């Protein structure tokens, strides 16, 4: 039958022998210089640590320092983190790239962010937008580049284009 707990005297001799280990001592005076050496080695490393911009940054953000040290020691985690960051960047880029276009528009519809002008442009007339040079309030109509556009001036005399009708003759 095996015992889980030893009797008190089972290892008495062994423990006596292990007492020998306590008498093993480093050379005399060894500990007189130990802490001095530690501090000297810290001093040698400290200036480097202080002038490094990365370390200065990490001092301000200790959470990031811990994240960095975690990633440093775990390459798999670092790889996964890198992939995740790249994924977020790519997704962000794609989303921001599409945000300026109105979906399902038959022609390019430009929506300048600073004004609320709405301009309808036929694909064949890109580069020639005569209505922008017209006097405020002028009504353009026809089957040319811009089919039907009403331009009027607002209170501050700025041209304002508004799409009011869009009909293509001959079913085009």
């Amino acid at each position, binding site marked *: 039958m095996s015992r*889980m*707990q*030893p009797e008190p005297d*089972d*290892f008495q*001799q*062994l*423990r*006596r*022998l*292990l*007492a*020998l*280990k*306590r*008498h*093993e*001592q*480093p*050379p005399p005076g060894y*500990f007189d210089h*130990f*802490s*001095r*050496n*530690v*501090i000297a*080695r*810290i*001093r040698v*490393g*400290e200036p480097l*640590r202080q002038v490094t911009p990365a370390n200065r940054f990490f*001092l301000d953000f*200790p959470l990031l*320092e*811990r994240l960095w040290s975690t990633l440093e020691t775990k390459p798999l985690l670092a790889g996964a983190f890198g992939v995740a960051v790249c994924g977020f960047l790519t997704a962000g880029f794609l989303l921001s790239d599409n945000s300026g276009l109105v979906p399902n528009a038959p022609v390019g519809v430009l929506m300048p962010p600073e004004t609320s002008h709405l301009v309808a442009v036929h694909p064949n007339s890109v580069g020639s937008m005569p209505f922008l040079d017209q006097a405020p309030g002028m009504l353009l109509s026809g089957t040319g580049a811009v089919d039907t556009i009403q331009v009027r001036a607002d209170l501050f005399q700025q041209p304002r284009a508004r799409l009011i009708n869009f009909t293509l003759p001959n079913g085009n």
Partner: protein
Amino acid sequence: MIMAEPASRKLPPNPDQAAQDPSPDPVDETELVKRARLGDLEAYDDLVRRYQERIYATVYHMTANHEDANDLAQEAFIKAFQALKSFKGGSSFYTWVYRIAVNKTINFLKQRKNRAQLSLDDLDFNAEHDPDLVALISERTPRREISLLELQEKLNAAMQKLSEPHRLVVTLHDVQGLSHEEIAEIMGCNIGTVRSRLFYARQQLQAHLSDYLK
């Protein structure tokens, strides 16, 4: 020797070390840690002096090599200083430094695996007069001095045959006199694991040293 904190910790069975290692005041230690975190190297020097012998001894008993123990103990204190910002005070500074030193040593031993070489410290003068050792030796051989050295080598060789966790438990408990609770905290395991490892390690040592034990 009384551990860093709390004040109610029990005394390990090492009267010689107790004489040269007075009990550190826990309040002072907290203050020293606080100052060291702000970069006060004098405060950190005080902390190093408090624990240098115990940290060195632990690393030495694990490696059985003075040069390695010297390097590792110093590196442990340097790393502890650099990581002081992350020290939350959940455990005592002493336990925290111990953990750093132990982890560093175990990593080192894993790399060293196949090139273990003993470089033992000398036995101090008191060894010849230690009642336990006198009793042990006198039963075996009258040539006490030679036998002590021989025993030292055999004991260290047997220790090196243990796995690192088992060697660590024997070192911390039977050599350095730490309690099971403290060892569990340092090793990051529960007390039951510490007890079972200690039992197994002693069994192994006893088997390796059977020629020198009755």
